[in-house]
């Protein structure tokens, strides 16, 4: 068993659709500065190693971590880049955890940085570079290239989310109003978070339902924006954490589990699941991470959750699949306010991915925000005391889930 790892700080850059005042390296340095500002006892000399990541090819730079080495203070220090598509941020955070937990000599404090500046590049090229290898097999089965583009339009994240939405809606018999309610809660929360992108303090359910469809049953008003932004998290060992901050947040469980490919399957052979809202990956990753953290009743033991939901139906789906609510009951919880800021189990009080989506950074902003809620330093702080929280990520080939379980108490069960 590795060393107990603690989060001592987390920081964000300002998010917007176009951060034209900075370039990628400067954007990252903003998040790093903010992260160190939250931990006044730490300076660059205390950081022993770095983990960095973003979506490959989105900005047209393939080794960005080498470009921004100086901008994160990583010169002459071990540096690692990890990228797993939509879950990049989650994987970078988990890699930061691994690096500290491994117990290598002279490596105690690790800074994990994830970022994305989508306005700078062409996301369709980035997505194409991810998808073409997989879908070009359909050529060998007699589907010409012009038809492939149709499949691509259905296979991108919005298409998959729409599939999940239709299945989820038919299972739970909810209407679009229930989806809009989730969006409204997120937008209101985002308005109270300094770094978030879509701040809409006055939006109503009717206004969301008044926007045109982007892909039935999802409307423009329900969909996440494309943001520029970065996020940084500082991991260290238990012994040092107490000197670096007031309330260290202990990482008690991490998991990243992939399920069978979602839409085309590998080699174009169809999906492993008939129901796209089944999400075995989320169930397996939560099972594993909760076991590591010694959580047997997630609904009771988890006080706060940040889930990765670019689309409102996914938020409803994830909170059920991660064991926070019983199957099909999530829409009711949003209606009755259980998930609101002052509720029993607040969810996505930062506004979530639904309000801010800098793809590479999004999955890291979830555990980062969940950790800040335990420290009591979050911008939109929940009034109740948060002891245990989770940060979830989704992406990869639309089937990978990352999960980080954090608590104000270290988990001693597995340690001698």
């Amino acid at each position, binding site marked *: 068993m590795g060393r107990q790892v603690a989060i001592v700080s987390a920081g964000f850059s300002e998010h917007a659709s176009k951060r034209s005042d900075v370039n990628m390296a400067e954007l990252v340095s903003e998040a790093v500065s903010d992260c160190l500002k939250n931990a006044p006892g730490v300076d660059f000399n205390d950081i022993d190693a770095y983990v960095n990541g973003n979506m490959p090819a989105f900005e047209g730079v393939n080794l960005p971590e080498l470009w921004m080495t100086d901008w994160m203070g990583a010169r002459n220090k071990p540096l690692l880049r990890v990228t797993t598509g939509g879950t990049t941020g989650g994987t970078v955070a988990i890699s930061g955890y691994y690096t500290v937990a491994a117990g290598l000599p002279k490596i105690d404090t690790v800074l994990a940085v994830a970022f994305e500046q989508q306005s700078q590049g062409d996301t369709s090229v980035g997505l194409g570079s991810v998808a073409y290898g997989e879908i070009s097999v359909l050529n060998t089965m007699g589907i010409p290239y012009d038809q492939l583009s149709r499949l691509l339009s259905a296979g991108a994240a919005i298409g998959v989310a729409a599939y999940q939405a239709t299945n989820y809606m038919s299972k739970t018999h909810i209407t679009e109003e229930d989806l809009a309610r989730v969006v409204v809660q997120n937008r209101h929360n985002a308005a109270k978070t300094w770094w978030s992108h879509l701040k809409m303090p006055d939006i109503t359910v009717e206004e969301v339902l008044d926007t045109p469809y982007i892909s039935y049953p999802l409307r423009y008003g329900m969909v996440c924006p494309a943001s520029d932004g970065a996020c940084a998290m500082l991991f260290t060992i238990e012994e040092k954490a107490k*000197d670096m901050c007031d309330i260290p947040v202990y990482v008690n469980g991490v998991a990243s589990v992939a399920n069978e490919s979602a839409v085309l399957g590998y080699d174009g052979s169809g999906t492993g699941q008939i129901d796209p809202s089944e999400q075995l990956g989320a169930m397996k990753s939560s099972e594993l991470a909760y076991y590591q953290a010694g959580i047997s009743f997630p609904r009771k033991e988890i006080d706060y959750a940040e889930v990765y939901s670019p689309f409102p139906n996914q938020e409803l789906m994830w909170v059920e699949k991660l064991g926070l609510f019983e199957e099909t009951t999530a829409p009711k919880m949003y209606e009755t306010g259980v998930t609101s800021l002052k509720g029993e189990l607040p969810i996505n009080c930062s506004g979530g991915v639904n309000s801010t989506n800098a793809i590479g950074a999004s999955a890291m902003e979830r555990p980062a925000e969940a950790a800040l809620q335990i420290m009591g330093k979050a911008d939109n702080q929940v009034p109740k005391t948060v002891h245990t929280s989770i940060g979830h990520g989704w992406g990869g080939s639309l089937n990978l889930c990352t999960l980080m379980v954090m608590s104000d108490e270290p988990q001693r069960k597995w340690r001698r």
Partner: protein
Amino acid sequence: MSKLTQRKSLDYVKKDYVRTRTMPGNWYLASYQYKFNITHNNEFLKKLKDKKIVGNQCSGCNRVFFPPRLVCGKCLVKPDQWVDLRETGRVATFAIVYLKDPETGEVQEKPTVLIHQDGADTAIIAQLNPEVDFKDTYIGMPVKIHWAEDRTGGLMDIEYYDVLEDDAEDMNPKK
């Protein structure tokens, strides 16, 4: 560790200029040679030409793959049994995409569906009969293959799926 020394500031980042200079650039992406093993597909594609559909079955978990798979990801064995499948299936899930015609600028509503073929354990992306009103699509809707006129031995031989009545005779497995 709690010393507040040598704190290097990054505040100069935004002070120096309000806006970065933007330099346009292009990626001239190379052509790639993707390699695929298609031995498991040959039999399947040949039969499509004769209006027959088959899937392959894993002897470990009995799952039937349509279209066929090279390896069962669950058991890590090669599915070696060929199973005949019926022409019918059900809509596993659907979404409606709004495609803009590049010439006229007209927005077309089009359902895209995943079809769960009867007798198979996987779902495949497919098209519905263009005459179907998308508002009538629902999950579990019975459908049947509409074969293309000129079949070449490819997945495009399944031109689209026709919608069946709930109590259609085709859906009766004994037939």
